[in-house]
Each structure stands twice: as C-alpha cells, then as structure tokens.
C-alpha cells in the first residue's frame, strides 16, 4: 500500500502498451525483411479481422466457442464443487475414489477426442464433453485440497458454536476453502479455453478453433489463422481478468494477500 512503490498511473498503461507496440513492430519488420509470402504481417491480420467482422463470421464463431465453454465449464463447476467438497470432507470416500481419479486426471482431454466421438458423435456434445472433462478434474482437486487445508481451529470453533455437520460445511469449511477453490476455478477456466480450440478443430464446424483450421484448409488464409489466434488470446485474457476481479471480493481477499 506504499504510494512510493506504486507506479504512476500513466506508467501502468504506458509500458505494457510500449511492449505491445514493440512486438508488433518486430513482427512487421520480420515479415518485411524475410519477404515471406506465406506468413501475414500485422496489417494483413488487421485486414483479416475486419473482413471476418464484416462477414459476421467472427462474432458467430466467438459466440459458439464461448457457448461451448459456458456449458462444459458450467457443468464442471456445478458437479465438481460439490463432489470435491464431499471428497475433501470425507477422507474415507476420497481414499476409495482417489486412485481412479489420479489415473484419469493426467490424461489430456485431447486423448479423449476419439472416445468423445464414439459417445456423442461429431458435433457440439463432443466438444462440450471434452471441455467438461478438462475442467472437472482440476476443480475437484482444488476443492479437495481447499477443504483438507482448512485449519482445524476453524472447524473446531464451528463445532463449538453448535453447528450441525451440514452447517459446518456451508458456514465454515466452504468459505475457508474458497480462496483455493477460486484459484482452481481460474486455472480450469484457462484450461477449458485451451481445450475448446482443440475440440473445435476436430468435432464441429463452427467456433474459433474451426475458424483456424478452416482458414488454413480453404486456401491457406494465414491472415485469418493469426487473426483467430489473436482473438483467442484476447478473449482468454478477458476471462482471466474477470476471474481476478472475483479474487478481490472482500470475503475472499484474505486468502490472496501475497498478491497485495
């Protein structure tokens, strides 16, 4: 909170913008100097974005990608948090389930693609299923981790005030574990956003991942490929920034003090 250590307001915008400008300049001149015919320059990409926006394709693809993430990730949150809380709360159940989960967890969602297609066919459901899988395990693990790291003092204080086990879970264990759970949710949202692109390259014919593969296949439109990549990056950043705002809420901020 020391005002002397805080960068001045213009500085917190100026330096990041300068970095971006330097990166774009480097990219531009690299394309010019190497005289490449294949790789687009930043201006080509900008024109590509404008073209896509005019044809309305871009918005539809962004909407489809976001929709798939919303459904798959949403289902992972809705199922993963209660399951994680229960597994963290009853170590006996966790011991039974843990080995199976530890085997499933390191399998990349990409490896599930053929299985997903057997189960759900080629289409939206497969993509949503893959996103669900990618987010589900990190969320469950974050909840188990959060619950088992709740200081015993908090649990004992809760019991001392006469809370039933369910009240204890809702009023003490969950809020005490929430900072760790939020970290897990943020990481898994990032993973879900990575996976949606991969899933769309294979299972569906819309979305930003499809846009990349389609632009390449239909005449090597690398300007559109890079345009879609940039959009993926920007949207990922926005999602992450949104989550970081949640971490600033006063009832969880105590768990993030190292970030000041």
């Amino acid at each position, binding site marked *: 909170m020391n005002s002397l250590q805080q960068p001045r307001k213009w500085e917190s915008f100026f330096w990041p913008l300068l970095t971006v400008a330097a990166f774009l300049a480097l990219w531009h001149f690299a394309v010019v100097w190497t005289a490449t015919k294949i790789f687009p320059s930043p201006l080509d990409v900008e024109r590509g974005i404008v073209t896509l926006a005019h044809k309305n394709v871009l918005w539809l693809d962004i909407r489809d990608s976001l929709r798939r993430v919303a459904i798959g990730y949403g289902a992972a949150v809705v199922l993963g948090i209660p399951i994680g809380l229960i597994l963290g709360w009853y170590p006996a159940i966790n011991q039974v389930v843990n080995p199976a989960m530890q085997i499933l967890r390191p399998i990349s969602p990409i490896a599930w693609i053929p299985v997903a297609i057997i189960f759900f066919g080629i289409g939206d459901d497969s993509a949503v299923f893959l996103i669900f899988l990618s987010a589900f395990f990190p969320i469950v693990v974050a909840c188990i981790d959060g619950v088992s790291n709740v200081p015993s*003092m908090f649990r004992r*204080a809760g019991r*001392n*005030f006469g809370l039933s086990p369910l009240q204890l879970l809702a009023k003490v264990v969950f809020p*005490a574990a*929430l900072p760790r759970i939020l970290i897990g949710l943020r990481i898994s949202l990032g993973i879900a956003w990575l996976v949606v692109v991969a899933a769309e390259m294979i299972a569906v014919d819309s979305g930003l991942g499809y846009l990349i593969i389609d632009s390449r296949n239909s005449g090597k439109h690398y300007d559109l490929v890079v345009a879609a990549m940039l959009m993926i990056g920007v949207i990922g950043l926005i999602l992450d920034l949104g989550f970081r705002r949640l971490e600033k809420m006063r*009832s969880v*901020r105590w768990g993030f003090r190292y970030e000041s």
Partner: protein
Amino acid sequence: MSSSIKEGAISPSPETKLVVEHVSMIFARDGKSVPVLADIDLDVRRGEFLCIVGPSGCGKSTLLNLMGGFLPPTSGAIRIDGEIVRGPDPRRIFVFQERGVFPWLTVEGNIGFGLFKLSREERERRIAHYIQMVGLKGFEQAYPSELSGGMKQRLEVARALAVDPDVLFLDEPFGALDSITRLTMRGELLRIWETEGNTIIFVTHDIDEAVQLADRVAVMSSRPGRIQQIVDIDIPHPRDISSPRYLELRAGIYDQIGLAHRI
C-alpha cells in the same frame, strides 16, 4: 473408558462448576503410546478464574481440549455441572490465539456467528453490545485482516461472549501479542470477567500472567503432566505487581517449576 464411571455418581456442590476426575491421556504416536496426562484431579469453582501453567509440552493444552470436549480422555471423566462432557457445547467456548477468528467474515459477522438461532433483533442487540464491550466500535464492517493482533483477540473474545457461555477456555490467548498489548488485554479480560461472571480456565506458560489474573494457579509438571500444586492467589484486584505478596507467590511458582530466579 469413561463409560465405567456412573453418571451422577457424584452430586456436585453448587459451588463446583467443573470436575476433572482421574483423567489420563495417552496418545499413540508412530506405534508407540505416549502418556501425556497422568491421573489429573482438579475442581474448578463456579465463576472462578483458574490459570494452568507448566513447561511447554506438559499437556496443559491437551487438558484444556479435554475439558472443551474436543478430545475424549483415555481414562477418567470430566464433569461440568455434574454432567459428563461428551463433546463441544456452545455453553462453553474455547478461545484460541487470535488466529481463530474467521477471516471471511466482518467484525459483525464474527460476533454474530454463534447467534444463528436467535431472532434478528436479539442478534443485532448482542452484536452491538459486545462490539461496545471490547472496544471495536467503528470497526463493525472491517475484516480481520484489517485489524491489529490485539483487536483480533478482542474480537474472538467477543464472539465467545456473545453466545453467553458459562465457561470460557482460553488457550494461551495472548501468546502472539506484543508485551504492551498483552498487558492491556489482561486488564480488559479481568474487567469483562468481573461484569460477565463466567468461569474462566486459562492456559498459559507465562507465570506472571497467571499470578496477575488468576484466583488460583494450577502448576503442572512436565510430561506426563500432573497437577503439582495449586496456588491460591489471595491478592484482590487490581493487583499491585510490585507488592511483596505478589513477588512471593510468583517466586513460589518459579520454584515449583524448577526455574532459577536469576538469568
């Protein structure tokens, strides 16, 4: 086990609040059994301020946890108002070091935590009352991370008092505070005890603290812990901590624990 002791076998005198009867505690650690408490007998009077002192590792915190109902004794029993303690109970609240306050709740939320069974008006009345009592007025909406160590400790005491318990168990509550705050807190605890009239059992390793606060000091030996001696502190409050009687009692406890008087 405690089941071998018949309930109600002893009719407690109305003066006695809490009785520790032949309590022993053995922990199993790495396949070995470690005796922590050996045959503890102790009576605590209603409204009494009892301090338990002893070297670190003597089992005084374990004894307090047994009294609080957080652990069952290996043998023997603990009775409060003649009833065997079988678990934690809102009528007797355990106060930890200030780390026990809930960081996700405001000052108001913490004090109101144990009052969920009361009506809204009654809850708000009590919250306001105890905020006033522990001097946290103006900090109702503050979170614990915005409070000093002493304020957090007062908050935890207020949270405990708000449910109107008959017994308070305090486990080295001021141990993490600086020495000046600690002195102030002792004064405030005495003031609160005198108005509220709870029975207080206070574990500390600080002999001065015990002699300043307690009606009686129970001195424990090192592991396995036994009650070595119970010292009556017959000085009325406010206590003059340079009076000969104070120094004499303090010296007696130092001797009892086997500490030298010179450094």
